[in-house]
Each structure stands twice: as structure tokens, then as C-alpha cells.
């Protein structure tokens, strides 16, 4: 039996690799349905309450949102590099790229937290017991917008946290893993990370850029 397959089911590492990739893509498809359903809810609300949503959208911080998009795209870039270096056997470079990816993920979360705090101060965050204060037009539907914004951004953040935890776990067990299993893991987490990036690529214009 091939020493380098992780599952007893496979003989050849190449086949196992193809299976891994395929599985990740199916998982991503599944996740896309999850986000898709919530986007659909947003879309319908947006069709019904366009002006209120546009006005509310202006209360989000465009500079911070843009900055965060840059951070996330950069993290995807460094994730792609980690994979590339791993493929070449340059494990030091790969490790650093991975660490950078996770770090950029943390930066993203930090900025997001700053945004949340600002919004909380403004009184538009749907936190238990805190009254909603908003001076724009149609506060009822603006509140709806902020609710959906927090739901979608937080769901995305939860995915990001998951990714960071997995990368951290990988790095902790890095030295004990064989090269082929390292590569296998980098490939899998890479696909996931890029997908989470793609989600944000859609969320950003949808939430921040309504009729600016």
C-alpha cells in the first residue's frame, strides 16, 4: 500500500489528491448555497426598500470596508504563494506565507471589530437591549438593513475565524507532518480561504456601495 496516502481507501497519492480537491470544491459549492440563500433574503429586501437601504448603507465606513477588502485580497495572495512555495519544496517561505495569511485574517477581524464598535456607538448595531438610534429616513427598514449587514458580515467573519484556527493548528503540527501531508493540507485550506475571500468580494459592494 502506498505509504503516502492518508486514507486506506487509496492506492495512489495522485488519486487521493484529486479526491481531496474534488471534495473541497463540493464543500465550497455547499457553502455557496448557504451564502446564496442569505444573499437572496438580502436581495429581496433590497428590492423592496431600495431608498432606505441606500441611505443606511452610507452609515457604514467605506474607507474601512475598502481597506478590509485590500487586506483580504492580500491574504489570498499570500495563501496562493504559500501553496506555490510548498509545491516547490521551499517550506520556509511557505510557512512564512501561511503565517502572513493568518495574520492578515486577524487584521481583517480587527478592522471589522473597529467598525462594529463604531456602529455600536452610533446605536445602529442590533445588540440585545441596546436601543436603535438612527437619524436617517425610514428607520424601520434601515434597522432591517443593519440587521442583515451584521448577520452576513458576522457569518463571513465566523468562516474567517475557522480558517485562521485551522491554519494555526496546521502550523503547530507543522514539524511532525510529512511533506506530502503538508502539501495536502495547504491545498485544502487554500481553497477554503480563497472561497471566503470570494464571499467578501461579493459582500463588499452589496453592503457598502449601494448608490454611493
Amino acid at each position, binding site marked *: 500500500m502506498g505509504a503516502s496516502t492518508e486514507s486506506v481507501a487509496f492506492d495512489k497519492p495522485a488519486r487521493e489528491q484529486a479526491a481531496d480537491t474534488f471534495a473541497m470544491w463540493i464543500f465550497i459549492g455547499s457553502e455557496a448555497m448557504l451564502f446564496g440563500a442569505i444573499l437572496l433574503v438580502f436581495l429581496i429586501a433590497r428590492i*423592496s*426598500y431600495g*431608498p*432606505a437601504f441606500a441611505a443606511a448603507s452610507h452609515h457604514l465606513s467605506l474607507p474601512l470596508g475598502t481597506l478590509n477588502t485590500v487586506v483580504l485580497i492580500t491574504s489570498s495572495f499570500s495563501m496562493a504563494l504559500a501553496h506555490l512555495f510548498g509545491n516547490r519544496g521551499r517550506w520556509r517561505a511557505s510557512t512564512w506565507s501561511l503565517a502572513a495569511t493568518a495574520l492578515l485574517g486577524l487584521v481583517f477581524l480587527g478592522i471589522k471589530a473597529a467598525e462594529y464598535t463604531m456602529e455600536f456607538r452610533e446605536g445602529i448595531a442590533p445588540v440585545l437591549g441596546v436601543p436603535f438610534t438612527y437619524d436617517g*429616513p*425610514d428607520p*424601520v427598514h434601515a434597522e432591517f438593513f443593519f440587521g442583515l449587514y451584521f448577520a452576513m458580515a458576522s457569518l463571513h467573519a465566523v468562516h474567517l475565524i475557522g480558517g485562521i484556527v485551522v491554519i494555526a493548528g496546521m502550523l503547530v503540527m507543522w514539524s511532525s507532518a510529512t511533506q506530502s501531508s503538508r502539501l495536502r493540507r495547504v491545498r485544502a485550506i487554500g481553497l477554503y480561504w480563497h472561497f471566503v475571500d470570494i464571499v467578501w468580494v461579493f459582500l463588499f459592494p452589496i453592503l457598502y456601495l449601494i448608490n454611493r
Partner: protein
Amino acid sequence: MSFGIPFTPPEASSIAGSVDLLFYTLLAFTALLGVFLTSLVIFYAVKYRAGSSADRTGERARSLPLEVTWTVASLLIAFVIFGWGAALFMRREHPPLEALEIAGLGKQWMWEFRHPGGQREINELHVPVGKAVIVSLASQDVIHSFFVPAFRVKQDAVPGRTTHVWFIASEPGRYRLFCAQYCGTQHSEMGGFVTAMPPEAYAAWLGNQGQGETLVADGEKLFGALGCSGCHGNSSKVRAPDLTGIFGRPVALDNQQTVIADDRYLRDSILNPKKEIAAGYEPVMPSFDGLVDEGEMQMLLAYLKSLSARDTTKSEAIH
């Protein structure tokens, strides 16, 4: 013969007969097909049981002509049933022009009805036989469903919108009214009776109910009390559209679109006026969301409808 055991529900509305005809036809078809398939399987099971001397030569693992035949046959039959059911269903969309409109309000856990003359009933509904009745349904809280088995009608009452159901009772009698959509603890107690009575008896019954304010009159009062007339009235300083004849009329919106002013539009105009702005006006109308409850909404809608010229376009606007 049936020993008091019911097998079929009473047929007491103009459509009950046609729905039953479809039901019984489909029943006959499925029973025939079911019996045929069952007998076929039993026949094979007996004839080809292990050890029997039946002839087994010439067996085949597939037969394209046969497979195509049953596929096409099933499709055709399916289309016929579909078409029949859909045609009957679309009648729901086209109530007769001359109809009596009763407001029905579902709340946990009772039905409240108001006749055009203002008479109120709880868990009882009196209707005349032979005259079309439209029940416009709203809900105060969760989704309920207006269900009269003897009439073969059912319609959910959904919070936040107005739905309609119509029927013509054909037999005088007392029929069960149910709430068919699960709505919480006392869902099974939410119901009562619909009493169908000859028109004269209905008129007499109405008379005996005491002359309450009509729905329209209540609506008119609200129209004043809520300040609507302050803007929409003749002497107003704010420039707001004249609402005479609004119901069923096409309205030009400021985004170049045109919509028919149906129940949905009126409701949205009151609760969410920013959504569709009438062309040529400033979006200054405040939202009355939270200020009018479902019952009051029904009064306002009744009043706005009463401002219509005559009921000519009504049937298109209702659905």
C-alpha cells in the same frame, strides 16, 4: 346505509361539485391503475413462483417500445390532470363583479368577521346563499388559514398582506369553519361555523344585529383621526394625491413605472410610503407602520375602496 359514518364532505358551494368531479375522476383513475398494478404483480408472483412450470423462454431485460409507451402515456395523463386542476384553480382569481365583501381577521385563536354594514361576528360567519361572497383576509399575528371543507375553499391569512377567498354558497346550512394553518397552542380550537341562509333570511339576520357603524364609516373616521385628511383632503396645504377613485386605478410612479392600485399597493402606501412614490409628489407622507393595527387597516382599505367611482375595475385588482 353508512351508519352515521361520514365518507364524503357535504357539497355546499358552486365550485364544490366541479372540484369533486376532478377528485372522483382522479380517484377512479388511480384506483384502476393501482388495482391493475397490484393484480399484475400478484399474477407474476404466483405464475413465476420458484418451481412453477410456467414458460420462461423469451424473457427480456428491457423493451424500448414499452418503456417509451408508458413514459409518454404517464406524461399525457399527468398533463391532463394538471390542466384540469389548474383551470379550476384559476377561478379563484376571478371573483364575480357583484360580490359581497366581508372582512375576515385571524388572530390567536379566533376569527373575527365584519360585514359591509359593520356587523361583527366572532367564529361565526353568516352568508347569503346564491350570492358571491369575497372574504378579504388579514392576520393580526401569525399565519392562519380560512378553511370551509363544505365549500372546498381554503386561503392562508398572512400578516402584512391582504389575501382573498371567494365562494357562492349553494345550500343553506351550517358548515364547519376551521383554521387550517398551525398557529400555536389553541390552533385546533380556532374555528366555528359558516351559516349559509337564503338571501331574505340573511337580510333579516343582518337587521337583527343592531346597526353598528359600517366598516366604511369607521374607516372614514380613522381617515380623519389619523390626519390623512389633513394632507389628502381638499383644503390641505400639502400637495398630496386626491384619493377619489384610487382603488383599481393605474398609478404612475416617479420611477417611470405604473402599478395598479390594488390592496397590496394601498397597504404599502400607508405602511411604507417611501417604497413607491406617486409621480409628481414629494415623498413627505409619513409611515403609519405601528400606528394602525390590522383591524384598522381593514377599515381604512374599505374606506379607500368606497371612494372608487364604480366597481368596474375591481375584479382585476383583487387577487
